[in-house]
Protein backbone atom coordinates (compact mmCIF):
# COMPACT_ATOMS: atom_id res chain seq x y z
CA UNK A 1 0.00 0.00 0.00
CA UNK A 2 1.42 3.38 -0.93
CA UNK A 3 1.24 5.78 1.94
CA UNK A 4 0.99 9.51 1.67
CA UNK A 5 3.45 10.38 4.40
CA UNK A 6 6.45 8.22 3.68
CA UNK A 7 8.98 7.16 1.12
CA UNK A 8 8.74 3.59 -0.06
CA UNK A 9 11.56 1.97 -1.98
CA UNK A 10 10.91 -1.49 -3.32
CA UNK A 11 13.41 -3.84 -4.94
CA UNK A 12 15.34 -0.94 -6.39
CA UNK A 13 18.04 -1.93 -8.84
CA UNK A 14 20.27 0.17 -11.08
CA UNK A 15 22.64 -1.39 -13.56
CA UNK A 16 25.30 0.64 -15.39
CA UNK A 17 26.64 -1.55 -18.17
CA UNK A 18 27.86 -4.64 -16.39
CA UNK A 19 27.98 -3.06 -12.94
CA UNK A 20 25.14 -3.35 -10.49
CA UNK A 21 25.41 -0.02 -8.72
CA UNK A 22 22.30 -0.66 -6.65
CA UNK A 23 21.20 -4.22 -6.13
CA UNK A 24 17.63 -4.93 -5.12
CA UNK A 25 17.30 -2.66 -2.09
CA UNK A 26 14.08 -1.94 -0.24
CA UNK A 27 13.33 0.40 2.62
CA UNK A 28 10.69 2.75 3.97
CA UNK A 29 11.29 6.14 5.55
CA UNK A 30 8.61 7.75 7.67
CA UNK A 31 7.93 11.33 8.56
CA UNK A 32 10.12 12.46 11.46
CA UNK A 33 12.89 10.08 10.59
CA UNK A 34 16.38 11.21 9.71
CA UNK A 35 17.64 8.42 7.54
CA UNK A 36 21.44 8.23 7.33
CA UNK A 37 22.93 6.51 4.35
CA UNK A 38 26.39 5.16 5.03
CA UNK A 39 28.82 3.32 2.89
CA UNK A 40 32.23 3.47 1.28
CA UNK A 41 32.69 5.49 -1.89
CA UNK A 42 31.05 3.79 -4.82
CA UNK A 43 28.70 1.77 -2.62
CA UNK A 44 25.60 3.08 -4.36
CA UNK A 45 24.57 5.92 -2.04
CA UNK A 46 24.64 8.68 -4.63
CA UNK A 47 23.06 6.48 -7.28
CA UNK A 48 20.17 5.75 -4.90
CA UNK A 49 19.76 9.44 -4.12
CA UNK A 50 19.76 10.32 -7.81
CA UNK A 51 16.98 7.81 -8.30
CA UNK A 52 15.04 9.19 -5.33
CA UNK A 53 15.15 12.62 -6.96
CA UNK A 54 14.18 11.28 -10.42
CA UNK A 55 17.47 12.40 -11.92
CA UNK A 56 18.13 8.88 -13.12
CA UNK A 57 15.63 6.10 -13.60
CA UNK A 58 15.88 2.70 -11.95
CA UNK A 59 16.60 -0.39 -14.03
CA UNK A 60 13.91 -2.12 -12.01
CA UNK A 61 11.98 -1.65 -8.80
CA UNK A 62 9.86 1.25 -7.66
CA UNK A 63 10.02 4.39 -5.56
CA UNK A 64 7.04 6.16 -4.09
CA UNK A 65 7.41 9.56 -2.44
CA UNK A 66 4.47 10.74 -0.32
CA UNK A 67 2.31 8.37 -2.32
CA UNK A 68 3.55 9.54 -5.74
CA UNK A 69 5.09 6.76 -7.78
CA UNK A 70 8.15 8.22 -9.49
CA UNK A 71 7.51 6.23 -12.64
CA UNK A 72 4.10 7.89 -13.00
CA UNK A 73 4.11 11.20 -11.14
CA UNK A 74 7.71 12.31 -10.81
CA UNK A 75 6.75 15.98 -11.28
CA UNK A 76 4.52 15.89 -8.20
CA UNK A 77 7.24 14.17 -6.21
CA UNK A 78 9.82 16.75 -7.35
CA UNK A 79 7.58 19.54 -6.12
CA UNK A 80 7.63 18.02 -2.65
CA UNK A 81 11.33 17.27 -2.59
CA UNK A 82 14.36 19.42 -1.87
CA UNK A 83 17.68 18.05 -3.04
CA UNK A 84 21.22 18.93 -2.15
CA UNK A 85 23.46 17.26 -4.74
CA UNK A 86 26.82 15.80 -3.85
CA UNK A 87 29.00 18.17 -5.84
CA UNK A 88 28.56 21.89 -5.41
CA UNK A 89 26.87 22.29 -8.77
CA UNK A 90 25.50 25.81 -8.91
CA UNK A 91 25.33 28.32 -11.73
CA UNK A 92 28.70 29.77 -10.87
CA UNK A 93 28.41 32.93 -12.96
CA UNK A 94 25.22 34.02 -11.21
CA UNK A 95 24.97 36.38 -8.27
CA UNK A 96 23.65 34.59 -5.16
CA UNK A 97 20.42 36.60 -4.98
CA UNK A 98 19.70 36.10 -8.70
CA UNK A 99 20.33 32.41 -8.30
CA UNK A 100 17.94 32.16 -5.35
CA UNK A 101 15.37 34.14 -7.32
CA UNK A 102 15.73 31.72 -10.20
CA UNK A 103 15.12 28.76 -7.89
CA UNK A 104 12.12 30.53 -6.37
CA UNK A 105 10.60 31.12 -9.81
CA UNK A 106 11.22 27.57 -10.98
CA UNK A 107 9.54 26.38 -7.80
CA UNK A 108 6.62 28.61 -8.65
CA UNK A 109 6.83 30.65 -5.43
CA UNK A 110 5.89 34.30 -5.17
CA UNK A 111 7.12 37.20 -3.08
CA UNK A 112 10.26 37.80 -1.08
CA UNK A 113 9.29 35.65 1.89
CA UNK A 114 10.76 32.34 0.68
CA UNK A 115 14.08 33.99 -0.07
CA UNK A 116 14.24 35.85 3.22
CA UNK A 117 13.52 32.60 5.02
CA UNK A 118 16.36 30.62 3.44
CA UNK A 119 18.78 33.54 3.60
CA UNK A 120 18.22 33.63 7.35
CA UNK A 121 18.31 29.87 7.79
CA UNK A 122 21.59 29.54 5.93
CA UNK A 123 23.10 32.90 7.01
CA UNK A 124 23.66 34.16 3.49
CA UNK A 125 23.11 37.88 4.15
CA UNK A 126 26.73 38.80 3.51
CA UNK A 127 27.03 37.11 0.12
CA UNK A 128 23.73 38.02 -1.55
CA UNK A 129 25.34 40.39 -4.05
CA UNK A 130 28.41 38.27 -4.76
CA UNK A 131 28.95 35.96 -7.67
CA UNK A 132 28.68 32.32 -6.63
CA UNK A 133 32.03 31.43 -8.19
CA UNK A 134 33.81 33.84 -5.84
CA UNK A 135 32.36 32.28 -2.67
CA UNK A 136 34.21 29.99 -0.31
CA UNK A 137 33.38 26.30 -0.32
CA UNK A 138 31.38 26.66 2.89
CA UNK A 139 29.24 29.45 1.46
CA UNK A 140 28.70 27.57 -1.80
CA UNK A 141 27.49 24.62 0.22
CA UNK A 142 25.11 26.88 2.15
CA UNK A 143 23.78 28.44 -1.05
CA UNK A 144 23.12 24.90 -2.28
CA UNK A 145 21.36 24.12 0.98
CA UNK A 146 19.28 27.30 0.70
CA UNK A 147 18.23 26.19 -2.76
CA UNK A 148 17.08 22.83 -1.39
CA UNK A 149 15.06 24.48 1.40
CA UNK A 150 13.47 27.21 -0.74
CA UNK A 151 9.99 25.65 -0.88
CA UNK A 152 10.13 24.24 2.67
CA UNK A 153 9.90 20.72 1.23
CA UNK A 154 8.30 17.80 2.98
CA UNK A 155 11.07 15.56 1.75
CA UNK A 156 14.69 16.59 1.99
CA UNK A 157 17.39 14.56 0.30
CA UNK A 158 20.96 15.60 1.00
CA UNK A 159 24.10 14.06 -0.40
CA UNK A 160 26.84 14.74 2.16
CA UNK A 161 25.33 17.92 3.59
CA UNK A 162 28.30 18.94 5.73
CA UNK A 163 31.02 18.15 3.23
CA UNK A 164 33.49 21.02 3.00
CA UNK A 165 32.17 22.89 6.02
CA UNK A 166 34.30 23.87 8.99
CA UNK A 167 33.45 22.42 12.43
CA UNK A 168 31.27 25.41 13.42
CA UNK A 169 29.33 25.32 10.19
CA UNK A 170 28.96 21.55 10.50
CA UNK A 171 27.41 22.02 13.94
CA UNK A 172 25.05 24.70 12.55
CA UNK A 173 23.89 22.50 9.70
CA UNK A 174 23.36 19.59 12.07
CA UNK A 175 21.30 21.78 14.37
CA UNK A 176 19.28 22.88 11.40
CA UNK A 177 18.65 19.29 10.33
CA UNK A 178 17.58 18.29 13.83
CA UNK A 179 15.28 21.30 14.00
CA UNK A 180 13.57 20.46 10.74
CA UNK A 181 13.41 16.75 11.36
CA UNK A 182 10.06 16.64 13.13
CA UNK A 183 7.97 17.76 10.17
CA UNK A 184 9.98 16.27 7.37
CA UNK A 185 11.32 13.11 5.90
CA UNK A 186 15.07 13.54 5.70
CA UNK A 187 17.46 11.28 3.88
CA UNK A 188 21.12 12.14 4.02
CA UNK A 189 24.27 10.39 3.04
CA UNK A 190 27.54 10.81 4.82
CA UNK A 191 30.81 9.10 5.43
CA UNK A 192 31.32 10.89 8.71
CA UNK A 193 30.19 8.39 11.32
CA UNK A 194 29.89 10.92 14.12
CA UNK A 195 27.31 12.72 11.99
CA UNK A 196 25.12 9.64 12.01
CA UNK A 197 25.11 9.69 15.78
CA UNK A 198 24.61 13.44 15.89
CA UNK A 199 21.57 13.73 13.64
CA UNK A 200 20.24 10.43 12.37
CA UNK A 201 17.47 8.40 13.91
CA UNK A 202 18.28 5.56 11.59
CA UNK A 203 21.47 4.32 10.02
CA UNK A 204 21.59 2.22 6.89
CA UNK A 205 24.86 0.85 5.63
CA UNK A 206 25.09 0.05 1.97
CA UNK A 207 27.96 -1.73 0.28
CA UNK A 208 28.31 -3.08 -3.25
CA UNK A 209 24.78 -1.91 -3.89
CA UNK A 210 23.22 -3.91 -1.08
CA UNK A 211 21.93 -2.95 2.35
CA UNK A 212 24.18 -4.49 4.97
CA UNK A 213 22.70 -2.88 8.06
CA UNK A 214 19.46 -1.09 8.87
CA UNK A 215 18.83 0.08 12.42
CA UNK A 216 19.34 2.89 14.91
CA UNK A 217 22.82 4.32 15.48
CA UNK A 218 22.72 2.65 18.92
CA UNK A 219 22.03 -0.72 17.40
CA UNK A 220 24.88 -0.11 15.03
CA UNK A 221 27.23 0.54 17.91
CA UNK A 222 26.03 -2.60 19.66
CA UNK A 223 27.42 -4.53 16.73
CA UNK A 224 30.87 -3.69 18.00
CA UNK A 225 32.81 -6.62 19.45
CA UNK A 226 33.78 -4.56 22.46
CA UNK A 227 30.44 -2.86 23.10
CA UNK A 228 29.91 -2.62 26.89
CA UNK A 229 33.16 -4.39 27.62
CA UNK A 230 34.72 -3.21 30.88
CA UNK A 231 38.39 -2.44 30.95
CA UNK A 232 40.12 -2.46 34.32
CA UNK A 233 43.61 -1.10 34.76
CA UNK A 234 45.39 -2.30 37.88
CA UNK A 235 48.26 -0.88 39.82
CA UNK A 236 49.90 -4.31 39.95
CA UNK A 237 50.42 -6.98 37.31
CA UNK A 238 47.32 -9.03 36.51
CA UNK A 239 47.22 -12.43 38.18
CA UNK A 240 45.77 -15.56 36.62
CA UNK A 241 43.78 -16.04 39.77
CA UNK A 242 41.78 -12.87 39.27
CA UNK A 243 41.11 -13.74 35.64
CA UNK A 244 39.76 -17.12 36.66
CA UNK A 245 37.56 -15.59 39.34
CA UNK A 246 36.07 -13.11 36.91
CA UNK A 247 35.47 -15.74 34.32
CA UNK A 248 33.30 -17.69 36.73
CA UNK A 249 30.80 -14.85 37.10
CA UNK A 250 27.48 -15.54 35.38
CA UNK A 251 27.26 -12.20 33.63
CA UNK A 252 30.74 -12.47 32.16
CA UNK A 253 31.23 -14.09 28.83
CA UNK A 254 34.99 -13.97 28.68
CA UNK A 255 37.98 -12.17 30.10
CA UNK A 256 41.06 -11.16 28.20
CA UNK A 257 44.28 -9.77 29.45
CA UNK A 258 44.75 -6.57 27.51
CA UNK A 259 48.19 -5.68 28.84
CA UNK A 260 50.45 -6.39 31.72
CA UNK A 261 48.25 -4.30 34.02
CA UNK A 262 44.90 -4.37 32.34
CA UNK A 263 41.95 -6.67 31.77
CA UNK A 264 39.07 -6.62 29.33
CA UNK A 265 35.87 -8.14 30.60
CA UNK A 266 33.28 -9.00 27.99
CA UNK A 267 29.67 -9.26 29.21
CA UNK A 268 27.05 -11.83 28.27
CA UNK A 269 24.75 -10.45 25.56
CA UNK A 270 26.65 -7.15 25.56
CA UNK A 271 24.83 -5.98 28.69
CA UNK A 272 26.13 -3.16 30.75
CA UNK A 273 27.83 -4.89 33.71
CA UNK A 274 30.08 -2.10 34.90
CA UNK A 275 28.48 -1.88 38.34
CA UNK A 276 28.67 -5.59 38.97
CA UNK A 277 32.29 -5.74 37.84
CA UNK A 278 33.28 -2.79 40.01
CA UNK A 279 31.52 -4.21 43.05
CA UNK A 280 33.24 -7.52 42.50
CA UNK A 281 36.64 -5.91 42.03
CA UNK A 282 36.32 -3.93 45.23
CA UNK A 283 35.16 -6.98 47.19
CA UNK A 284 38.13 -8.95 45.99
CA UNK A 285 40.56 -6.20 46.81
CA UNK A 286 41.73 -5.41 43.25
CA UNK A 287 44.14 -2.50 43.28
CA UNK A 288 42.28 -0.48 40.66
CA UNK A 289 43.78 2.51 38.80
CA UNK A 290 41.07 2.99 36.24
CA UNK A 291 37.81 1.45 35.10
CA UNK A 292 36.26 2.24 31.74
CA UNK A 293 33.19 1.12 29.91
CA UNK A 294 33.83 0.56 26.20
CA UNK A 295 31.30 1.74 23.65
CA UNK A 296 33.02 0.35 20.63
CA UNK A 297 33.69 2.60 17.70
CA UNK A 298 31.36 3.03 14.77
CA UNK A 299 34.43 3.06 12.58
CA UNK A 300 35.24 -0.47 13.62
CA UNK A 301 31.66 -1.64 13.03
CA UNK A 302 31.55 0.16 9.70
CA UNK A 303 34.75 -1.51 8.56
CA UNK A 304 33.55 -4.92 9.69
CA UNK A 305 30.28 -4.57 7.83
CA UNK A 306 31.65 -3.08 4.62
CA UNK A 307 34.75 -5.21 4.34
CA UNK A 308 32.93 -8.48 4.77
CA UNK A 309 34.39 -9.21 8.20
CA UNK A 310 32.39 -10.71 11.06
CA UNK A 311 29.99 -8.22 12.53
Amino acid sequence: MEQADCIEVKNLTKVFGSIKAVDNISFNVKKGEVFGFLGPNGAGKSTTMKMLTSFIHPTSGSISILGYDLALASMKAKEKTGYLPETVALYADMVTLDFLNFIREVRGLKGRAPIERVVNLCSLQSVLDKKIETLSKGFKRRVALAQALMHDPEVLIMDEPTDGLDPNQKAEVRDLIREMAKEKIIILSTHILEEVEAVCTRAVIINEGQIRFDGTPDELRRRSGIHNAVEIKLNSPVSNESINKLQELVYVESVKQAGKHSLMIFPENKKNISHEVMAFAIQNGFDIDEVSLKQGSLNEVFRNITEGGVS
Partner: protein
Amino acid sequence: MNSGIMPILKRELAGYFTTPVAYVFIILFLVMSGFLTFNIGGYFEAGQADMRGFFSWHPWLYLFFVPAIAMRLWTEERRLGTIELLLTMPVSMFSAVTGKFLAAWMVITLSLSFTFPMVLTTLYLGSPDMGSIITGYLGSFLMAGAYLALGSCFSAMGKNQVVSFIISVVVIFILMIIGLSGMWLPDFIPEVLIGALSNLSLLNHFNSLQRGVIDLRDIIYYLSVIICSLFASAVIINVKKAE
Protein backbone atom coordinates in the same frame (compact mmCIF):
# COMPACT_ATOMS: atom_id res chain seq x y z
CA MET B 1 3.47 22.62 -17.64
CA ASN B 2 4.68 25.41 -19.91
CA SER B 3 4.94 27.81 -17.01
CA GLY B 4 8.34 26.30 -16.32
CA ILE B 5 9.77 27.84 -19.49
CA MET B 6 9.80 31.45 -18.30
CA PRO B 7 12.29 31.22 -15.40
CA ILE B 8 14.67 29.21 -17.58
CA LEU B 9 14.32 31.57 -20.51
CA LYS B 10 14.95 34.56 -18.25
CA ARG B 11 17.97 33.00 -16.60
CA GLU B 12 19.51 32.05 -19.92
CA LEU B 13 18.94 35.50 -21.41
CA ALA B 14 20.47 37.14 -18.35
CA GLY B 15 23.40 34.76 -18.77
CA TYR B 16 24.00 36.00 -22.32
CA PHE B 17 23.94 39.65 -21.32
CA THR B 18 25.84 39.51 -18.01
CA THR B 19 28.71 37.82 -19.84
CA PRO B 20 30.24 39.17 -23.07
CA VAL B 21 28.65 36.34 -25.10
CA ALA B 22 25.68 38.30 -26.49
CA TYR B 23 27.66 41.49 -27.19
CA VAL B 24 30.48 39.69 -28.97
CA PHE B 25 27.96 37.69 -30.95
CA ILE B 26 25.92 40.69 -32.04
CA ILE B 27 28.89 42.87 -32.94
CA LEU B 28 30.73 40.17 -34.87
CA PHE B 29 27.57 39.15 -36.67
CA LEU B 30 26.95 42.72 -37.82
CA VAL B 31 30.58 43.28 -38.83
CA MET B 32 30.74 40.04 -40.78
CA SER B 33 27.40 40.47 -42.51
CA GLY B 34 28.36 44.01 -43.54
CA PHE B 35 31.76 42.90 -44.75
CA LEU B 36 30.35 40.02 -46.77
CA THR B 37 27.57 42.08 -48.30
CA PHE B 38 29.58 45.16 -49.24
CA ASN B 39 33.15 43.97 -49.76
CA ILE B 40 32.75 40.44 -51.03
CA GLY B 41 29.20 40.55 -52.36
CA GLY B 42 29.66 43.89 -54.14
CA TYR B 43 26.36 45.39 -52.98
CA PHE B 44 26.92 48.79 -54.62
CA GLU B 45 28.55 47.43 -57.75
CA ALA B 46 25.52 45.24 -58.45
CA GLY B 47 23.52 48.40 -58.99
CA GLN B 48 20.29 46.84 -57.79
CA ALA B 49 18.12 48.03 -54.94
CA ASP B 50 17.42 44.64 -53.41
CA MET B 51 18.76 42.65 -50.51
CA ARG B 52 19.52 39.37 -52.23
CA GLY B 53 23.22 40.02 -51.85
CA PHE B 54 22.67 40.49 -48.12
CA PHE B 55 20.50 37.47 -47.40
CA SER B 56 22.45 35.05 -49.59
CA TRP B 57 25.32 35.20 -47.10
CA HIS B 58 23.16 34.27 -44.13
CA PRO B 59 23.28 30.48 -44.52
CA TRP B 60 27.08 30.69 -44.47
CA LEU B 61 27.25 33.19 -41.64
CA TYR B 62 24.93 31.09 -39.53
CA LEU B 63 26.96 27.98 -40.34
CA PHE B 64 29.60 29.27 -37.93
CA PHE B 65 27.76 31.76 -35.76
CA VAL B 66 24.85 29.57 -34.70
CA PRO B 67 26.88 26.53 -33.61
CA ALA B 68 29.05 28.95 -31.65
CA ILE B 69 26.07 29.97 -29.56
CA ALA B 70 24.46 26.51 -29.55
CA MET B 71 27.54 24.67 -28.35
CA ARG B 72 27.24 25.85 -24.78
CA LEU B 73 23.50 25.18 -24.38
CA TRP B 74 23.90 21.79 -22.71
CA THR B 75 27.62 21.05 -22.58
CA GLU B 76 28.05 23.61 -19.80
CA GLU B 77 25.20 22.20 -17.74
CA ARG B 78 26.69 18.75 -17.96
CA ARG B 79 30.31 19.76 -17.46
CA LEU B 80 29.51 21.79 -14.34
CA GLY B 81 26.91 19.33 -13.08
CA THR B 82 24.19 21.99 -12.83
CA ILE B 83 22.01 19.74 -14.95
CA GLU B 84 21.42 17.67 -11.82
CA LEU B 85 20.10 20.73 -10.03
CA LEU B 86 17.94 21.79 -12.97
CA LEU B 87 16.36 18.43 -13.71
CA THR B 88 15.62 17.47 -10.11
CA MET B 89 13.42 20.53 -9.80
CA PRO B 90 9.85 20.36 -11.08
CA VAL B 91 10.88 21.39 -14.58
CA SER B 92 9.81 19.31 -17.52
CA MET B 93 12.38 18.36 -20.11
CA PHE B 94 10.21 20.23 -22.59
CA SER B 95 10.52 23.47 -20.62
CA ALA B 96 14.25 23.09 -20.13
CA VAL B 97 15.01 22.37 -23.79
CA THR B 98 12.59 24.97 -25.11
CA GLY B 99 13.57 27.68 -22.64
CA LYS B 100 17.23 27.39 -23.51
CA PHE B 101 16.49 27.24 -27.22
CA LEU B 102 14.22 30.30 -27.18
CA ALA B 103 16.74 32.40 -25.25
CA ALA B 104 19.48 31.66 -27.77
CA TRP B 105 17.10 32.23 -30.66
CA MET B 106 16.22 35.62 -29.21
CA VAL B 107 19.89 36.63 -29.14
CA ILE B 108 20.26 35.63 -32.79
CA THR B 109 17.03 37.41 -33.69
CA LEU B 110 18.24 40.52 -31.92
CA SER B 111 21.43 40.43 -33.99
CA LEU B 112 19.38 39.98 -37.13
CA SER B 113 17.11 42.91 -36.25
CA PHE B 114 20.15 45.17 -35.84
CA THR B 115 20.76 44.77 -39.57
CA PHE B 116 17.84 47.17 -40.21
CA PRO B 117 20.18 49.90 -41.58
CA MET B 118 20.60 47.57 -44.58
CA VAL B 119 16.90 47.96 -45.26
CA LEU B 120 17.11 51.75 -44.89
CA THR B 121 20.09 51.90 -47.24
CA THR B 122 18.29 49.86 -49.84
CA LEU B 123 15.16 52.01 -49.52
CA TYR B 124 17.29 55.13 -49.93
CA LEU B 125 18.94 53.79 -53.05
CA GLY B 126 15.83 52.70 -54.86
CA SER B 127 12.45 51.12 -54.46
CA PRO B 128 13.05 47.54 -53.50
CA ASP B 129 10.42 44.85 -53.34
CA MET B 130 9.45 45.04 -49.67
CA GLY B 131 7.76 41.64 -49.89
CA SER B 132 11.00 39.85 -50.67
CA ILE B 133 12.79 41.75 -47.88
CA ILE B 134 10.19 40.63 -45.37
CA THR B 135 10.22 37.02 -46.54
CA GLY B 136 14.00 37.20 -46.59
CA TYR B 137 14.04 38.15 -42.93
CA LEU B 138 11.43 35.51 -42.14
CA GLY B 139 13.48 32.87 -43.92
CA SER B 140 16.67 33.98 -42.21
CA PHE B 141 14.94 33.89 -38.82
CA LEU B 142 13.55 30.40 -39.40
CA MET B 143 16.79 29.07 -40.83
CA ALA B 144 18.69 30.33 -37.79
CA GLY B 145 16.16 28.54 -35.58
CA ALA B 146 16.66 25.30 -37.49
CA TYR B 147 20.46 25.57 -37.23
CA LEU B 148 20.15 26.34 -33.53
CA ALA B 149 17.86 23.40 -32.80
CA LEU B 150 20.28 21.09 -34.61
CA GLY B 151 23.14 22.60 -32.61
CA SER B 152 21.18 22.04 -29.40
CA CYS B 153 21.07 18.33 -30.27
CA PHE B 154 24.83 18.09 -30.65
CA SER B 155 25.47 20.10 -27.54
CA ALA B 156 23.30 17.59 -25.65
CA MET B 157 25.56 14.74 -26.71
CA GLY B 158 28.69 15.58 -24.78
CA LYS B 159 30.48 17.77 -22.32
CA ASN B 160 32.94 19.32 -24.72
CA GLN B 161 32.00 22.59 -26.42
CA VAL B 162 34.61 22.37 -29.15
CA VAL B 163 33.53 18.88 -30.20
CA SER B 164 29.91 19.99 -30.16
CA PHE B 165 30.78 23.02 -32.32
CA ILE B 166 32.68 21.01 -34.93
CA ILE B 167 30.03 18.29 -35.23
CA SER B 168 27.31 20.93 -35.56
CA VAL B 169 29.16 22.80 -38.29
CA VAL B 170 29.82 19.63 -40.27
CA VAL B 171 26.30 18.24 -39.98
CA ILE B 172 24.67 21.57 -40.79
CA PHE B 173 27.00 21.98 -43.76
CA ILE B 174 26.00 18.56 -45.09
CA LEU B 175 22.30 19.35 -44.56
CA MET B 176 22.78 22.64 -46.42
CA ILE B 177 24.39 21.34 -49.56
CA ILE B 178 22.56 18.05 -49.69
CA GLY B 179 20.81 17.67 -53.02
CA LEU B 180 21.99 21.08 -54.26
CA SER B 181 21.60 20.72 -58.06
CA GLY B 182 23.05 17.23 -57.64
CA MET B 183 26.47 18.73 -58.11
CA TRP B 184 28.40 16.49 -55.79
CA LEU B 185 26.27 13.36 -55.83
CA PRO B 186 27.48 10.38 -57.83
CA ASP B 187 25.48 9.31 -60.92
CA PHE B 188 24.13 6.04 -59.59
CA ILE B 189 21.82 7.77 -57.09
CA PRO B 190 18.37 7.78 -58.65
CA GLU B 191 16.77 11.08 -59.52
CA VAL B 192 13.86 10.51 -57.16
CA LEU B 193 16.24 10.30 -54.25
CA ILE B 194 18.06 13.43 -55.34
CA GLY B 195 14.73 15.21 -55.46
CA ALA B 196 13.87 13.97 -52.00
CA LEU B 197 17.26 14.99 -50.67
CA SER B 198 17.03 18.46 -52.12
CA ASN B 199 13.75 18.84 -50.30
CA LEU B 200 15.70 18.23 -47.11
CA SER B 201 18.28 20.87 -47.89
CA LEU B 202 18.41 23.72 -45.43
CA LEU B 203 19.55 25.97 -48.24
CA ASN B 204 16.90 25.23 -50.88
CA HIS B 205 14.07 26.27 -48.62
CA PHE B 206 15.79 29.51 -47.81
CA ASN B 207 16.41 30.28 -51.46
CA SER B 208 12.72 30.21 -52.30
CA LEU B 209 11.81 32.42 -49.32
CA GLN B 210 14.50 34.86 -50.34
CA ARG B 211 12.87 35.28 -53.70
CA GLY B 212 9.81 36.69 -51.99
CA VAL B 213 7.66 33.61 -52.25
CA ILE B 214 5.97 32.48 -49.07
CA ASP B 215 5.50 28.81 -49.54
CA LEU B 216 3.88 27.13 -46.55
CA ARG B 217 6.03 24.08 -47.22
CA ASP B 218 9.21 26.05 -46.50
CA ILE B 219 7.85 27.33 -43.22
CA ILE B 220 6.62 23.88 -42.24
CA TYR B 221 10.00 22.45 -43.20
CA TYR B 222 11.91 24.77 -40.85
CA LEU B 223 9.42 24.35 -38.03
CA SER B 224 9.63 20.57 -38.38
CA VAL B 225 13.42 20.68 -38.25
CA ILE B 226 13.17 22.79 -35.08
CA ILE B 227 10.57 20.59 -33.38
CA CYS B 228 12.24 17.31 -34.32
CA SER B 229 15.68 18.53 -33.23
CA LEU B 230 14.38 19.83 -29.91
CA PHE B 231 12.59 16.56 -29.34
CA ALA B 232 15.79 14.68 -30.16
CA SER B 233 17.70 16.97 -27.77
CA ALA B 234 15.29 16.07 -24.98
CA VAL B 235 15.69 12.36 -25.67
CA ILE B 236 19.48 12.62 -25.81
CA ILE B 237 19.62 14.59 -22.56
CA ASN B 238 17.39 12.06 -20.86
CA VAL B 239 19.69 9.25 -21.85
CA LYS B 240 23.00 11.01 -21.24
CA LYS B 241 22.33 13.40 -18.38
CA ALA B 242 23.81 11.22 -15.67
CA GLU B 243 27.10 10.43 -17.43
